[in-house]
């Protein structure tokens, strides 16, 4: 029983921690962010399984997390506001030649991050970009200016 309760608490706590770490952990992981994700996961796992290393315990914990995730995913579709709370909303970081500095500062996005996303679309300079959008999964989508 404790395992399932700990797994559910761990799921929501990790969800909160990752959510407020802005979106960078979702995509474009730097080495330090890799450390963050693995360390947080490892710490939560310790409290989840405790000193019960049985197969039953592991299976119950995995099923509990899968069920909670499924419920959250279903509720996100049904209640879009919950989706916005859990995953956030897309945010425009560059619009028609203007950096959206408030969004960039709050989301800790640098112009180098936008340019890194632009290069994957064969865009060579920032002035070729019409829009850059920080997506819910942490990726940056770039829309090129029409020639």
């Amino acid at each position, binding site marked *: 029983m404790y395992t399932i309760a700990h797994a559910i608490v761990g799921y929501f706590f990790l969800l909160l921690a990752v959510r407020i770490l802005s979106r960078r952990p979702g995509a474009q992981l730097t080495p330090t962010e890799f450390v963050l994700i693995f360390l947080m996961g490892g710490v939560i796992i310790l409290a989840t399984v405790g000193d019960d290393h049985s197969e039953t315990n592991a299976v119950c914990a995995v099923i509990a997390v899968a069920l909670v995730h499924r419920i959250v995913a279903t509720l996100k579709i049904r209640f879009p506001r919950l989706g916005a*709370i859990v995953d956030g909303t897309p945010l*425009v970081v560059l619009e028609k030649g203007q950096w959206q500095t408030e969004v960039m500062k*709050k989301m800790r996005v640098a112009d180098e991050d936008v340019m890194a996303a632009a290069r994957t679309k064969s865009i060579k300079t920032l002035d070729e970009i019409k829009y850059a959008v920080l997506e819910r999964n942490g990726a940056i989508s770039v829309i090129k200016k029409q020639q």
Partner: protein
Amino acid sequence: MPFPIQTEPIEKTKPIEDSVPKINNELAVGSDLEFQRRWWRWENGIWILFTAIVVADLLGCFGRGPLANAHARTNDGTMDISYERIERFSTPSMLKIKFGPNASRDGAVKIWVSDSLVKELGNQRIIPQPDASTLDGHGILYTFQSTPHPDTIQFGLQPTSPGIHSLTLRVQGAEEFNTKIYVVP
């Protein structure tokens, strides 16, 4: 109860609607900056809360720190007790009792402990091993052979349930020690 049977046909297709809000009337992004601003304010509150939790943890408010460590002595000097007033669920800790000279009678120290020591606080071992242990009311009476100057016994605890648990210790014929131990999940 059987699962409800779906009587209406499931909608397999639906026409595209302009359901995702646009910016500059040309790019469907679904951005909601007002919601995001509210989120940022809430996020700041969470960071303040997280900082407070870390500081409280460093101080020992959740066990294993300076505020969690407790020390008490009975007025008659029979027992000098070191323990953790805030314990963590399923986490080992030690409760030490240093006896005064008047604790020993007829070459033995007899100490009665409430059964919460074994049940909720999860006593795992006693150092040194008692020579006898007897069920006595709502507790256990341990007997240790001793010299006229007994030293220290230790109980290795590992709490089995979160909550507030009362603990009573009493050397036979001496003053009783009562305390409450908080076990955090």
